[in-house]
């Protein structure tokens, strides 16, 4: 049955700066994996968990979210929007939803893909008890998230957001919560303006009152960095895959099983689309081009003979004939942090153009509307609107 008493609040107002340049034009929850926005998976999980009223907290580039989800009819849910005009943290974001929710509600991050079963368990625990509920899961790199300390199996005693010191646990905050309306006062007490992360409030609550932990071992997919998009996409096209109905195939393209292709995609003769790839709506892959392990956004064009491996080609971008993104591992710097040995052939930002025969060294990130001249070899991070000349 659907539960009328519980609303789901989804936090989707943030920008996702670590994912620039892809987030220059869309909020992180709208990044496509297997041709569908991350947020769509979140909404489907909520619906499957028996909740059909969803409040989306939107802010940065919210038109993209509103256009896609409308009033939620296509997903059999009622979607309402509340606006967080300035991105002042997740606590502040949740406060914006206060007028739109009842006494009990669940809260999810719009950029984490979780199973419906987890949402259902959090919902049930929220309805059944009066303490805040928090889902926890185990990951390989806990220090990139909110590390949770537990007392016993199901009581949260503290949360440390991205701790600098080594930690002895792999258990983190999975970003799915259940609350009563009391949480709003708790947020305001933590910070009168709410200019804080929700986890700060929870850490404060945990000092005095119990927070129920819900352990979770299912699918938990988070896109923190550009290369995560390739990894998450590959894992979803594997399970979600084979949806190739929209192909406007010219002749004899080769398409692997674990590929998802959107509507009105045009594939030229002898094009090869290898495993782990997704091609967005209205995209074009020219004759003899090779796309492998890559995410191609809507309207992008990959011209004849180009090789695109382990790459993200964003909306309306163009990879010229015989251009090469050879793929492989690289060291990538994001926000002055060095990330060695990540698999990232390259990123071509929205509306960027890679000239014919140009080469992207692994790890290259081209800003939106940037242009690489034909035959140029480019590496590192290129600013938006920049032009890379052949030198």
């Amino acid at each position, binding site marked *: 049955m659907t539960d009328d008493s519980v609303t789901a609040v989804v936090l989707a107002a943030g920008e996702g700066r670590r994912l620039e340049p892809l987030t220059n034009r869309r909020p992180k929850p709208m990044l496509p994996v297997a041709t569908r926005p991350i947020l769509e998976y979140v909404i489907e999980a909520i619906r499957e968990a028996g909740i059909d009223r969803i409040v989306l907290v939107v802010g940065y580039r919210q038109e993209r979210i*509103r*256009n896609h989800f409308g*009033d939620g009819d296509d997903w059999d849910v009622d979607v309402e929007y509340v606006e967080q005009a300035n991105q002042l943290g997740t606590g502040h974001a949740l406060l914006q939803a206060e007028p739109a929710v009842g006494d009990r509600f669940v809260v999810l991050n719009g950029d984490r893909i979780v199973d419906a079963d987890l949402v259902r368990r959090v919902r049930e625990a929220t309805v059944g008890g009066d303490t805040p509920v928090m889902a926890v899961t185990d990951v390989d790199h806990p220090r990139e998230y909110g590390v949770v300390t537990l007392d016993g199996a199901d009581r949260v005693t503290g949360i440390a957001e991205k701790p600098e010191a080594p930690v002895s646990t792999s258990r983190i905050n999975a970003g799915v919560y259940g609350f009563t309306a009391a949480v709003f006062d708790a947020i305001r007490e933590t910070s009168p303006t709410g200019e804080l992360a929700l986890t700060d409030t929870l850490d404060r609550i945990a000092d005095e009152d119990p927070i129920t932990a819900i352990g979770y071992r299912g699918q938990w997919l988070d896109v923190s960095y550009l290369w995560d998009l390739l990894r998450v996409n590959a894992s979803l096209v594997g399970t979600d895959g084979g949806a190739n109905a929209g192909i*406007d195939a010219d002749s004899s393209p080769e398409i692997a099983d674990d590929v998802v292709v959107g*509507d009105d995609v045009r594939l030229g003769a002898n094009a090869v689309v290898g495993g782990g790839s997704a091609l967005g709506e209205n995209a074009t892959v020219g004759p003899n081009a090779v796309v492998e392990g890559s995410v191609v956004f809507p*309207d992008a064009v990959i011209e004849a003979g180009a090789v695109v491996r382990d790459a993200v080609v964003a*909306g*309306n971008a163009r990879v010229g004939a015989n251009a090469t993104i050879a793929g492989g591992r690289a060291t990538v710097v994001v926000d002055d942090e060095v990330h060695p040995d990540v698999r990232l052939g390259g990123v071509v930002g929205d509306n960027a153009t890679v000239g014919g025969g140009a080469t992207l060294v692994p790890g290259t990130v081209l800003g939106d*509307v940037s242009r690489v001249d034909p035959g140029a070899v480019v590496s590192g991070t290129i600013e938006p609107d920049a032009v890379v000349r052949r030198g």
Partner: protein
Amino acid sequence: MCGIIGYVGDEAAAPIVYQGLENLEYRGYDSAGIALVNGARATGGSRATGGSRTTGDVAPDVAADGGLTVAKRSGEVSNLTVPDAPDATCGIGHTRWSTHGPPTDANAHPHVDCAESIAVVHNGIIENHETLKAELGDHEFTSQTDTEVVPHLLETELSETAGEDAPDLRTAVERVVDRLEGSYAVCAIHADENRIVAARDGSPLVVGHGEDAAFLASDVTAFLEHTREVTYLEDGDVVDLSADGDVEVFAPSDDAAESLPRRPVDRSVETVEWEADAAEKAGYEHYMRKEIHEQPTALRQTLSGRVDVDRARVDLDVSLPEAFLERVEEVQIVACGTSYYAGRYAARLIESFADVRTTVEIASEYEFGAGRDPDRTLTIAVTQSGETADTLGAIRRADSAGARTLAVTNTLGSSVTRAVDDAVFIRAGPEIGVAATKTFASQVTTLALLAVALGRERGTLSAARARSVLEDLRGLPGAVQQALDAEADVVTAAERYCDEDAFFFLGRDLGVPVALEGALKLKEIAYDHAEGFPAGELKHGPLALVTDRTPVLAVLTEGGAPAETMTNVTEAQTRGADAIGCVSADREFGTLDVAFEVPDVGLLEPLVANVYFQLFAYHVANEKGRAIDKPRNLAKSVTVE
């Protein structure tokens, strides 16, 4: 032009009718009203009338008596107090755009007869209402509308032959509508029955089939939340909706000997593919802004499955015989308003790709014209709604002259699709904002596809050129998205210039229709003085209007002779005007005060420039606090001539 809604079924009618009126408000917002059959859920006259009910509101809002509750009021739908009538399961509603009589409470629909037991709503014009009114000398009229004769005529029909042979409501409606001259969609209810009888001739009316319920409306968006199963009525039809949702349609009979002028017919039930939420606002402040932002999606739908780049072909699923295409000497485009500008854009493309003379005419001014061979003429009606009276009139003139006719429209089942030989749909999805935005983009795109198709069929467009145009068309959704992503820059420009005296839009070639359309948007929603000119004309007169308070907005892209246009822009700048330009990505005009970048999509670049103009008009109007979705004096599709 007005909006009509009717509901009969097993649920409370008032909220459904009210919601329908809100959905239809784009069709008119001078006044609104609702009439309900007071409810004990009885039918067939078995229930005694009486028990007059008021809505708790004061007169003139309420004229409840006998078995009907009527609430009506001038102003927007939100001004209307919805009768609290949970037992009433049959009702009709109306939202008005005035033609006869100013928007007053008395002139608002529904209109009732003397006994206040019959209520009628009407869209269209009854041309012989004065004559009919003269016949009804002893009836009391309370409004200045043409509509009011209908309930009184029904009253006469129903009372004249009392007893065994008494006509029922349907018979009465049939007799009355056959005496009406002009155009109409009318819905009538009677206090004794949970039943709606309606008729159409020249104005749109569509039936929705619910579960144990039936709907009637001017447009499917009125009831899309409840059902997508619809039947489009044809001119001359009378439809009878019963309390349990059964629908019977009666069409004029060819057999004059029959006692009644109509006999039952089967009209097909179709499923509407539009999403209900596409006609909802999704939290946007205005439909117009939502629809501007929907353009990439709308354009992908317009193109979907129609383009084969490699074979340089277009498939629009229209059957224009090869022999006709070989002999065709002239393509005529007829349209109004924004659709007319889309036609102007397309005419250049058709002439260039298909090598055939193409003329564009404002529909209300159209005549087939002397010296033309109808057998060698293709007349294309471009209309978003498919119900625009002027355009329908024009295409009928073309048809009776013997020309081959084609409609380019957004609306399945609309009147224009039945008036022409072939129809092509632009697939933009419902457009609710009165100012057309996404439908302009989809119209131009559809017509560009048609131009390529004609060029290829006639052998006048090379495969190479066709491929290049088709690739540009496929690039259009992404290019429009890029313009939308720059909205913040347009907001800045709108804030800077919103208080100026007037705005001049300049363009050449394909930039001319876009300049005209840009000016129209600003007039429509910001109420600012705005004019579009071919840039070369500036120096032949309009330059006298240019001051330092009249910014100039120019199309400086591919397809719009940018260098020449810039010369004219500079002429205006010399007189102190600021200049805002939409510029191709590979060009730069350093002297512009504001420049918006247009990605490379060849001859379609002016269409991307138009997106900036749409955003500019929207944000200027927003700065001024205008009623953007309901601009004063305007209605969405104008179904009167």
